[in-house]
C-alpha cells in the first residue's frame, strides 16, 4: 500500500504569482514526514500539489514532477480523480459532510467508487473507524449526523473517511490546529499507529508536534514577502531539531523568527 513519493523540480503558481519554487525531495514509505516553516512559506501549497488538490483553485497550476513509486502524478493521461483516491487528505478544520450520518461519511468515498454491497460497506466502516480510534465512541450511533460529534471526534471521523478508500499516502494539513490538547494527543497517537501502513505527510505549525510525531522533517522558508517559498532542508527529525545544517532552520526552530 504505502508508496514512496519522489518530487523533482516542482513549482506551483496562483495565477501569475509563484507560490513555491523548484522543490525536490523524497518522502519515504511507511514513515511520517513533517513540513514546518513560517506562515506563507508554501508548505500547505506544496502538500496540495501531492494529490493534485492545488489545481482545483481557479487559476492555479503546477510545474514539475511528482513520482508515486514509478508513476508521475502530472504525467499525461493521469486522471486527477484517480490520484486523489490514491493519495488521501485530511484538512485543517474537520469537515465531515454536514448532511450525512457518521456511517455515510465513512463510506462516502467507496460509494463514489460504486461500491454498493452492504456487507462490504459495514466491514469497511468498522475497520476504518477502529483504525481511526473512533469505533468505541460512535459504534452505537452510526446513523447520527457526523456534525454532532466533538471537534476531535470529527477530525478522527475525517481520518476514517480518508483511510476507508485505502489510499497509498495520507496527507494531513495542520490536522490539529483547530483542536484542544486532549484531542490533539489522540490524533498524534493515531498518526503513530497509522504510519505502519501508510506514507504520511503532515503540515504543522507546532514544532513540538513535528518533533513528537515525525520521523523526518522538512523546513520551508521564503526569502521575503512576495517571494516564492523554498525547501530549505529535509533531514531526520532528530537532526533537524538538534543539529540542523542550515542556519535559517536553527533560527526558526530556536524561535528567532517565524
Amino acid at each position: 500500500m504505502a508508496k514512496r513519493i519522489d518530487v523533482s523540480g516542482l513549482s506551483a503558481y496562483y495565477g501569475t504569482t509563484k507560490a513555491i519554487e523548484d522543490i525536490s525531495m523524497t518522502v519515504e514509505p511507511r514513515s511520517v514526514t513533517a513540513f514546518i516553516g513560517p506562515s506563507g512559506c508554501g508548505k500547505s501549497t506544496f502538500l496540495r500539489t501531492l494529490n493534485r488538490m492545488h489545481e482545483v483553485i481557479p487559476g492555479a497550476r503546477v510545474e514539475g514532477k511528482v513520482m508515486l513509486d514509478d508513476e508521475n502524478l502530472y504525467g499525461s493521461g493521469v486522471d486527477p480523480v484517480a490520484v486523489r483516491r490514491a493519495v488521501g487528505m485530511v484538512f485543517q478544520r474537520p469537515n465531515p459532510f454536514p448532511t450525512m450520518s457518521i456511517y455515510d461519511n465513512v463510506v462516502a468515498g467507496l460509494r463514489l467508487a460504486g461500491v454498493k454491497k452492504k456487507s462490504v460497506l459495514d466491514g469497511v466502516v468498522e475497520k476504518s473507524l477502529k483504525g481511526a480510534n473512533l469505533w468505541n465512541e460512535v459504534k452505537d450511533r452510526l446513523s447520527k449526523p457526523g456534525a454532532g460529534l466533538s471537534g476531535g471526534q470529527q477530525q478522527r471521523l475525517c481520518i476514517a473517511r480518508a483511510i476507508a478508500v485505502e489510499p497509498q499516502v495520507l496527507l494531513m494539513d495542520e490536522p490539529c490546529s483547530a483542536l484542544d490538547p486532549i484531542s490533539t494527543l489522540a490524533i498524534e497517537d493515531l498518526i503513530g499507529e497509522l504510519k505502519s501502513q501508510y506514507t504520511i505527510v503532515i503540515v504543522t505549525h507546532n514544532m513540538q508536534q513535528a518533533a513528537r510525531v515525525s520521523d523526518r522533517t522538512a523546513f520551508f522558508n521564503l526569502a521575503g514577502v512576495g517571494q516564492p517559498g523554498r525547501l530549505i532542508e529535509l533531514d531526520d527529525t532528530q537532526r533537524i531539531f538538534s543539529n540542523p545544517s542550515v542556519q535559517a532552520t536553527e533560527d526558526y526552530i530556536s524561535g528567532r523568527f517565524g
Partner: protein
Amino acid sequence: MTSSPPATSEGRVRRRRGDSRLGDAVFFNLSRGSGILLLAVMAAIAGFLAYRSGIALSKNQGNFLTTFEWTPDAAHPKFGIAVLAFGTLVSALIAMIIAVPVAVGIALFISHYAPRRIAQPFAYLVDLLAAVPSIVYGLWGVLFLVPHMDGLTRWMDQYLGWTYIFDQSKSGVPPRTLFTVGVLLAIMVLPIITAVTREVFRQVPRMHEEAALALGATRWEMVRTAVLPFGRPGIISASMLGLGRALGETIAVATVLSTNSVLSLHLLDPGGGTFAQNIALKFNEAQPFGRDALMASGLVLFVITLVVNGVARLIIARRKEYSGANA
C-alpha cells in the same frame, strides 16, 4: 461677568437633552409607525377583499369552487373558480417543471462551472432578464414565442398524444395554450430562482467541496455530495418564490392565452384561464357585482400566494439560522 457659567452650561445641556429626547421619540415613532402601516396595509388587503368576496358569495347561484361559468352580471349570477384554479395551477406547474432544473443548472454554471470571466457578466445578464416588464414578455410571447411553439406542439401531439394531456384535439390554430403559457412563465421566473439558488450555492463551505474532491470525486460527484445537499433548502425556497410569481402573473398570461374559458385536460388546446388573467380581462366591463365576484377570486389568489411565499420565507429564515450557527 456676574452670571455663573455653570448655570448656562447646565441649561444648555438640559435643553439639548430635551431636544434629543423629543427627537428620538419622534423619529422612533415615525419609523415604528411606518412598520405598523405596512402591517396595516397587508391586513387591509385581506380585510377588504374578504368583505367584498362575502357580498359576492352570498348571491352566487353557482358553486364557487366547482362552477365553470363566470357570469356574475347575468340575471342569475353564477360564477366559479374551477377553470381558473385549474389553469393557474397547471400553467404554474409546467413553469416549475421547466424552470427549476434549468435554474439550478444556470446557478451551478455561474457558481461552479463557468470560467470566471464568463460567470460574472452572465450572472448580471440573468439579473437583467428579471427586469424586463411582463407586458413585454407578453407581447414577445404572443408574437414570437407562439409561432415558434407551433412545431413543438405538433411534434408533441404526434409522438406524445397517447398521454392524453398532450393530445391536440383541434389542429391548425396558433398554440395560445396553457402549455405555451407555462413555457413563457418558466422563462419569466428563471431569473428569480437562479438568483436565490446561486447565492446559496456560493455559500457552500469550500472545505466541504474539498473534502469531496480529496476523496476522489469527479466535479459532478462533488456537486452531488457537497453542493446540492447543502443547497437543497435554498433550491426549495427559491422555487417557491418563483412559484409565487408564476401563480400571480397577470398580463403576460392575458396576452398569450386565447380567451375562451374552458377547462380541458388537453394542455395543447388553446384556451383556459388563470385567476390573474381573468381579473385583468373581465375587469373593465364588469358591473359592480361582477367586480365583487372578481375580488372573491382575487382573495383566493392572494391567500395562495401568501401561503407559498410565507413557506418559502420560513425555509430561508431557518436556513439562515442554521448556517449562522455553523459559521
